[in-house]
């Protein structure tokens, strides 16, 4: 059973959204979710579970809104046969069959431009890998050993000058010398 919306053929048995050649090689996420919702409320589509969830378009103020993420629920986008480069853009496309949203079509190189605009970073964590954190900790151990008895001047124990080890104690009769 299938229904076609805006040159996208929805095959409810195969759970595929087949992009038809008449549509061309580009597909926007907005057009995709519009067609999905239309297919879902068709006479055929309502007998099946919904095709996708969608989130986004949250007003951020100043005329900005978050982008759209379409999560395909065990469905896939399939491009029409040919040799060309296809592009999906204008949001994010996730989910799909075995978490693969775009099925393979021989000869078609599909670029999915998933946007990442504003991500949430868990607080209380640095974002570093354990190895990077260990390296940074080692550096801090060393820098903590640096002493500034006089502001702006690092305390140092001079053992060599001009690559030559200093001799002597600096005391009378045992002057420093190279």
């Amino acid at each position, binding site marked *: 059973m299938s229904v076609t919306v805006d040159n996208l053929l929805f095959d409810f048995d195969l759970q595929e959204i087949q992009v038809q050649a008449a549509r061309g090689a580009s597909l926007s996420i907005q057009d995709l*979710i519009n067609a*999905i*919702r239309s297919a879902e*409320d068709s006479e055929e*589509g309502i*007998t099946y579970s919904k095709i996708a969830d*969608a*989130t986004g378009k949250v007003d951020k103020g100043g005329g900005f809104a978050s982008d759209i993420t379409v999560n395909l629920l065990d469905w896939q986008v399939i491009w029409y046969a040919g040799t060309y480069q296809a592009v999906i853009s204008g949001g994010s496309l996730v989910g799909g069959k075995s978490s693969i949203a775009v099925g393979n079509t021989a000869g078609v190189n599909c670029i999915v431009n998933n946007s990442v605009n504003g991500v949430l970073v868990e607080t209380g964590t640095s974002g570093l890998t354990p190895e990077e954190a260990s390296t940074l900790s080692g550096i801090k151990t060393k820098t903590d050993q640096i002493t500034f008895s006089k502001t702006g001047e690092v305390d140092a124990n001079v053992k060599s000058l001009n690559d030559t080890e200093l001799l002597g104690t600096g005391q009378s009769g045992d002057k420093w010398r190279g």
Partner: protein
Amino acid sequence: MPGAPIGGVISHTRAPTDPFFYADVEVQNARAGSAYMLGYLVSGEFTPLAGFSGTVAGTENALVDFTLTNVPSYAATMVLELRLRKGTSGTKYQPYSANAVHSSNGVIMYVSQVPDDIA
């Protein structure tokens, strides 16, 4: 001398596929213009009930109540599922479904469709 007995035997045969009973399902608070389909769940799978689908009548997007009459029950405990979809024209709403256990006294399903701000 008593007369010959009169009367007869009234028998009724129920086929295994006959419904247990028929009762009305009232749907409240639906958006006019939505496509609807009533079905029931068999092992979790949706099975449409023939003759209980269509478009919610009324002024576009208005909240309306409607009744589906003589809905059959094919199990002692049959879980109904009502699907509402409105994603093509006018104000769109997210795909919606509601469940209820069918009853010989009838069922009321109150629905609350959520506007679709994305499609």
